[in-house]
């Protein structure tokens, strides 16, 4: 069972640019991701919003495999800042896990 940490969102959200809550989970991003990363970004953003940091940290390879190419972002009907949100996740992982 995963632990819920309500303050996880505060660690990830460094500015208003982080707008994961705008995601309506339609799945367009996953469908067109050139890397075929089904998890990114909608499921990961949901984990962040729910405070399930453990699930986010279990998916480091997917988070760093993202090309930041914005193919998902230009097709996103909810205008989620997907690339910047992924960068925010990387920032947290660099700090928390890699100690960089």
């Amino acid at each position: 069972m995963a632990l819920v940490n309500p303050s996880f969102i505060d660690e990830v959200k460094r500015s208003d640019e982080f707008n994961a809550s705008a995601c309506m989970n339609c799945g367009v991003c996953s469908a067109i991701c050139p890397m075929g990363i089904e998890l990114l970004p909608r499921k990961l953003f949901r984990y962040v919003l729910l405070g399930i940091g453990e699930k986010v940290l279990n998916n480091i390879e997917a988070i760093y495999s993202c090309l930041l190419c914005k193919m998902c972002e230009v097709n996103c009907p909810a205008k989620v800042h997907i690339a910047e949100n992924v960068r925010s996740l990387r920032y947290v992982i660099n700090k928390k896990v890699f100690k960089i």
Partner: protein
Amino acid sequence: MTLPTGDTIGILADNLKLRNSVLPISKENAIRWAKGLELPRGGETILYTGIMYQLIPYIAAMSKAQELIEDSWMANFVSVGRYVNKLINVSGFMAKPSESMQKSYNQILVNIALLLKEAGVNFGYLYEEELYSGALIYDLGVDDILKDHVHKVYNTFKKYKVKNVITVDPHTTNMLRSVYPAFIEGYDLYVKSYMEVLVERNLQPKNELTKEVVIHDSCVYARYENVLKEQRTLLNRAGVTVKEPADSGRFTLCCGGPAESLFPKKAIVNAKKRVDQIKNAANNGVTMCPICFVNLQKAANDEITIDDISNYLVQAYL
């Protein structure tokens, strides 16, 4: 086994912090391309290479070494490498660039400088004081180290009273035009890619090129910086027939290059997908980004030609 993500990012970030570049390149090699062009040092308008084209032969050499390490017992020792790298430049031993590759990437910068001169632009160059923009470290999300570096770059511009920066690649354009303003209060530089400047100056061709090319847009130009018309205008004006592959323009397919530093195998899979799309349109792919250029060229494996746009432009406009 994949490369250890944290240690690889750590090495790249340490390099930026300690050596001002993600991979080692001597100042002599970074500025060699400008030899004989007699560009003034500094000035109100400068050509800023961001050392991207010069770094590609080093990235290619490093990536070859990484591919070998990725599936071997050596992957376990990358963490040791990070500690050693703080004292000795480890990536310098791993990345020995090919001379012919260095020559062809330097030629692209010469092309760009000559095109700008032909368009009547007066510009200088910062020579050995020019620094890498930090693009890869930004992508990897190491913002604390990037923040210090961004100020170093900006202070060099200020030292030479630079007002206008002409860039040569999409990643540096994006960093200087859209990312730096978020890190520097009162950021006041005007940044344009050389293609935007050439179109703005209404450069006219001297020779007609009756060629057909398939255009590969860089994701960063297309989706971050909205540079889409300029490359087509310059090629069309020169008489080149521009063909569009599946997934083009604003919806261009990424070359896979951004995965290169951490997951070289994933990068090549994506590049092959894009090469197939290009191949279905025609046999000459044209790129405008050094990362797309190297990654697609590697995946094309001589089945089709991939060339930088500047190599076409010099044939038509000089």
